């Protein structure tokens, strides 16, 4: 490592002197993929501590300098309760004992439930209503209980038998502790990376976010320009809405025929189950059909009477008043779930965006000086609904490739990374699964029934057959007019909502027949309370607003303002001037605003600038 200063131009006239530091490998983002990468690298290093391959080229005489920067304030502040087959994770930890990882347990029992609508407010098609009527009519014969129909058979591609139920926050903490204890790599939380350092098509490191700035990013008290970290290799694992990955995509574009067109917002609660709960640890439920046909849900039971319960609100839910928190509250009150959750207590809450494009959204996996791993590299398998294990495995593959290149004394060039990392990935089960899944969800743009048929077709034929569909860009998914309400009533609702400080989407759901949520102060709490008692959301001072709206005229003309309805933390609200107003203190960095903005400047780029920022969730149980 060597240090220095560097003069950079920021804006047109303002030169800022930045500190620089040279390292061998700079990593952006710490999640399962980065955990896999660093675990693989440090394990080989530990086994051969005197191997000259692990000597630094940037600081001769020193060991390899590997730094990882994580945006969140703690490695455990991630959000995802997951069920995973853990194939790649177990390959890295053959002796893995789930009891060593808090909230981890082996999968014991899986169910797939179709949830009927006991409320009558769900946006169901005629076909679906007819099917529901048939199910209700045959209820006793089909074993329908609590308005739920358990599928008697579930295809193998959905099974997670032998896998693990995990809290990703706890898993990251467990992996991170081992990595830091090795003393070979450094992982710095609370350190957002603002952008990659790009020259032409080559990446030469990362720039950390400026501190001591005002909301607009202008220098203020205690200004500390973000350091430029020059690196021989930049490993990009900052997720689907990460600033580094998106900046590289903007510069290089995506490979021909690739596009990120499908997203979902995953929102969940960690619930302390009542003392007399009959749910056994390792229980896994997958649900669909409620609160809207397009919304999938889950219930995973951890040890110690904790359960992760959540929903996925997809971009193809063609409704501009879509929201997640209110839907989640209705979801947990479905009789099939409520019978187990009633008298439970909210312990944690959180949300994140999921890139559901899979392989279709895969970016350039590597180039001169950089490599992409994890969800942001398109590794999520949208057929099996699995991402953590795939992300971990892509990290392992890059780790093996880097070790090979270090030992061969080769540079981290486009060619050498393609020959090592990409070759490994293309030959692996991750790639095979991604290819099987890449058209599996096409049918959902034609409705839930068509979507399920398409998924089954792809899953049962190993991807050889699938439905064709023309997938619109995500900005168009929510651009449809607000259905079911005449303009006069809509205007009245909008005015009343604005005057009462109530979000419009909330009023719209009530107008459609969804009952008001009766808060109990334990499990059913206001969204603001969920931020504080569940997500423990916090924003560090001295950072700029990371969500901005470059052209207020576009926002003023936008009727739907889906950015507000889909904001997980109510961090974007309608200001008194009728424009979206951002409050950094409430943001959980889920990135939903990015793909829910229906106003586009040009091409697929949304009219929201979503940058790297510190703070967000502080919950360790997510």
């Amino acid at each position, binding site marked *: *490592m060597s*240090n220095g200063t560097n003069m950079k131009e920021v804006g047109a006239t303002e030169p800022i002197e930045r*500190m620089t*530091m040279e390292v061998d490998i700079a990593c952006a983002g710490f999640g399962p993929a980065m955990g896999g990468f660093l675990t693989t690298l440090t394990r080989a290093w530990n086994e051969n501590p005197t191997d000259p391959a692990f000597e630094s080229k940037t600081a001769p005489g020193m060991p390899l300098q590997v*730094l990882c*920067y994580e945006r969140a*304030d*703690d*490695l*455990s*502040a991630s959000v995802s309760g997951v069920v995973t087959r853990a194939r790649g994770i177990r390959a890295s930890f053959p002796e893995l004992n789930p009891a060593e990882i*808090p*909230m981890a347990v082996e999968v014991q029992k899986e169910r797939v439930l179709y949830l009927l609508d006991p409320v009558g407010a769900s946006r169901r098609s005629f076909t679906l209503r007819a099917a529901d009527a048939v199910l209700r009519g045959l209820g006793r014969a089909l074993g329908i209980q609590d308005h739920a129909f358990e599928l008697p058979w579930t295809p193998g591609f959905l099974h997670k038998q032998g896998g693990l139920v995990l809290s990703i926050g*706890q898993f990251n*903490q467990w992996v*991170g*502790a081992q990595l*830091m*204890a090795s*003393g070979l790599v*450094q*992982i*710095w*939380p*609370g*350190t957002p990376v603002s952008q990659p350092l790009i020259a032409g098509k080559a990446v030469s490191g990362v720039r*950390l976010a400026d*501190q*001591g700035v005002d909301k607009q990013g202008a220098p203020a008290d*205690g200004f*500390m320009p973000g*350091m430029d*970290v020059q690196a021989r290799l930049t490993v990009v694992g900052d997720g689907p809405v990460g600033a580094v990955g998106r900046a590289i995509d903007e510069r290089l574009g995506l490979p021909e025929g690739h596009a990120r067109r499908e997203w979902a917002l995953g929102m969940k609660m960690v619930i302390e189950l009542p003392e007399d709960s009959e749910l056994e640890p390792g229980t896994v439920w997958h649900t669909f059909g409620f609160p809207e046909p397009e919304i999938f849900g889950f219930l995973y039971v951890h040890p*110690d009477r904790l359960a992760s319960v959540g929903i996925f609100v997809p971009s193809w839910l063609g409704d501009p008043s879509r929201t997640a928190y209110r839907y989640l509250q209705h979801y947990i009150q479905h009789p099939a779930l409520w019978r187990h959750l009633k008298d439970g207590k909210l*312990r944690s809450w959180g949300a994140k965006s999921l890139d559901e494009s899979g392989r279709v959204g895969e970016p350039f996996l590597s180039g001169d000086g950089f490599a992409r791993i994890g969800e942001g590299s398109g590794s999520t398998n949208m057929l099996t609904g699995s991402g953590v294990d795939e992300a971990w495995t892509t990290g392992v593959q890059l780790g093996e490739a880097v070790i090979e290149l270090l030992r061969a004394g080769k540079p981290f060039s486009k060619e050498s990374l393609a020959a090592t990392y990409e070759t490994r990935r293309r030959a692996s089960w991750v790639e095979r699964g991604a290819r099987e899944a890449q058209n599996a969800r096409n049918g959902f743009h034609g409705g839930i029934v068509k979507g399920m048929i398409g998924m089954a077709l792809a899953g049962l034929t190993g991807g050889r057959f699938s439905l064709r569909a023309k997938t619109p860009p995500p900005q168009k998914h929510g651009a449809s007019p607000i259905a079911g309400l005449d303009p006069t009533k809509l205007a009245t609702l909008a005015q009343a909502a604005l005057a009462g400080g109530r979000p419009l989407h909330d009023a719209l759901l009530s107008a459609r027949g969804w009952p008001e949520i009766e808060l109990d102060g334990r499990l059913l709490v*206001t969204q*603001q*309370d969920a931020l*504080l*008692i569940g997500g*423990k959301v*916090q924003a560090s001072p*001295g950072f700029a607003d990371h969500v901005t709206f470059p052209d207020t005229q576009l926002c003023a003309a936008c009727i739907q303002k889906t950015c507000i309805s889909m904001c997980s933390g109510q961090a974007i609200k309608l200001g008194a001037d009728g424009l979206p107003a951002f*409050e950094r*203190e*409430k943001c959980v960095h889920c990135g939903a605003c990015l793909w829910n903005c229906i106003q586009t400047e040009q091409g697929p780029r949304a009219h929201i600038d979503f940058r790297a920022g510190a703070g967000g969730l*502080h*919950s*360790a*149980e997510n």
Partner: protein
Amino acid sequence: MGNVLHIVVCAGTVPDPLQTLEPITGPNGPGVKNEMMLPAVLDPWAASALYEAANLAARNPGSKVWLVSLGPKAKLQQVMMTVAQKVSFELVPIDGPLGGFTDAHATAAVLAEAIAALPGLDLERLLLFGGWESATRGAGVTLQLIGERLGIIDQFQGVDQIDFREDGSFEVLERVEGGKHQASVCMGTPAVLGWATGNLAEPRNNPQTGMANMRTIMPALQRAKPAPLPANGLRYISVALPKQQRTTRVEKDMTPDAIARELVEWIGAE
């Protein structure tokens, strides 16, 4: 300013105050439910002491700051990844149990022993810093006990400011009743200072400071010796969280007067 100071800061780790804490009684006595899986931070009171120590050391060239911390090695490691980016110090980790319910005398004995054994420490130049209170349990005696074990007579609590003079004496402002400070002049080191909040803002995360600190922190953590703390017959009859009533609302445009009025009404309604 020409005083070369040896400043030792005693600071424990505590669960991130944003977490929901739940007291439980386990086989080893009271504790916090799932504490090992909760994210931890440096005790906020002691963190103020650390920032003041670093500031003081920077203004007195040749001075040095040690951070002595007793807690599970894994928690210390986790907390250091944030604290190390703030200010420069040398970590002296002691691998022990989670804090909060240990015997203050046993804790003080372990910490005093570790401080006395610090290579290069000049006891005549020593300023022993720590928190006036603790976010885990306000026993408020550990720092004094360490001072006594080290033979330091001059002790100050609730400190918000220290100003050194050319002759090596210093003035200390301690919090007293009525929102006022008591000013004391001490002829010189050694002294014990239990800090309140001080006057410094939390330093920004500086990656270079972090990198420099890590050169000594990681080896120190790997060498950290276990220090089981005897209970010394300490027994808790009951443990409870302070009574809480939560009414949450985020307001950004209320005037201070309006906020104050509402708070008074809210408190009065209790």
